[in-house]
């Protein structure tokens, strides 16, 4: 596979799955914090 194609495939995967993981992690941290406050 062409290196440039690999690079763009990895960039796409990182942004989408990385973004999802970041947002989900934030969600979990926030709900944990809320529970502790309660």
């Amino acid at each position, binding site marked *: 596979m062409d290196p440039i194609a690999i*690079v*763009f495939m990895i960039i796409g995967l990182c942004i989408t799955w990385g973004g999802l993981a970041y947002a989900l992690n934030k969600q979990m941290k926030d709900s944990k914090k809320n529970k502790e406050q309660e």
Partner: protein
Amino acid sequence: MSKTNERQQFNTKMGFILSAVGSAVGLGNIWRFPYVLYENGGGGFLIPYFIALFTAAIPLLIVEYTLGNKFRASAPLAFARNNPKYEWVGWIPTMLSLMIILYYSSIVSWAINYLFLSIDMAWGPNPDAFYFNEFLNVSPTAFDFGSINFKVLGGLAAVWAGTYFICSHSVSKGIEKFNKVVLPLLGVCLIIIVFRGVTLDGAEAGLNVLFTPDFSKLAEPKVWLAAYSQVFFSLSVAMGIMITYSSYLPKDSDIVNTAYITGFANSAFEFTISIGVFGILGYMATQQGVPVTEVVTSGVGLAFVVFPQAFNLMGTFGSILGVTFFACLVFAGLTSFVSLTEAFIVPFVDKFKIKRKTMYRIVCIGGFLVSSVYATGAGLLILDIVDYFVNSFAIITVGIVEAVVVSRVFGIKKFQDLVNKNSIQKVGSMWKVSITLIVPVVLVLNLLLLIVETVKNGYGGYSVAELGAYGVGTIAAIFIFTVILTRLPWKNKEDITEFRLED
């Protein structure tokens, strides 16, 4: 809490997220996105795609989540609670979702049929002829109905009956449980398709074609418009779904982060499945000794013609991959179908106080009877025309109206405060620019382009009479029903007058 604020809820936040993602991930993610990515500059398309995601799709998703969640209502009631004069804005997406479920049910029915056909690859050596002549028996014109196709009719019965049994329960026992089961299954299908897709001989040829960037395309305005329309259609906004679903979230939910989760999950799915799709197309092109560009296609042609051709070349594993692929279509289709049906039904429950179960019974029986027109020989042609008009003109119009009403009528500052009320991650001036400027401008441009294109060249080789009867007719029906439903009195007017945001 006032009585008007009592509303059923999802049991868990994860249940809501899975349902929202299930709604966003639909057939378009599987058969539209890979082609759009390839057609508009490959890897280079990621630049306009992500810009569009962050400046239009997610901001509008935040608007819809806020409308549903803060006003505890489906689309018409949410708009009416903001300002009674704008109830009609909520009825347009409601009627639009009805028009979509009527034909979407038949596509899911085809996928169910193909799921069974793929066990022994019963489409034979010529999937093209099988699909159009034998399976659908397509008529020459959209006015020539031919005979009823009982296989498609059987699939339709299964889809509508299944929807009734899933959704007529409460939200937590029906839609939430269903999505908690189906979304993981969809994930498993995704993994199998991608893993097998990239390990096929010649897959790299397909992936090279898909991802090698063509940056010269970034100078073309149509590529940017394609990016905005892709993210807009893909996220199920402007159909009333997200407003309805978010009304089942606890009122103190973090709207902004939830919108990002939905947006990223949808993008992750469509980006990943495109790797599997182009891996399979690369394999097919290599086996046939033709360039990948010759086998690339999208829509029903990809799913029901090109992929069966590719499965034929794989021998026994073709049937395993075929079953997985059509199961993926069925799961993605059903989760979207269920959400569209919910978005159509709940406004009637809200306004006329019809019991949820009764409403589901009426809609599923009526929907089955009306959608049986799509099981005739003219079904595919009518579907194509209605889809073109509803899924482009109507949805874009709703998006424009929603953005304008929220920013100009309700007031963008007031709305921003509402969004930020319980959100840890706040929206700022960029979000305001998106809703007041970017979303309306981009969608108006898209709409103008579509109108000019359709007036100039027509669509799909259909006659003016066919486009008028089914396309313009559907738009006219949406308009007429919107007027009638807005004018009918509320069963309980206090639902609007006694609602307080702070309750």
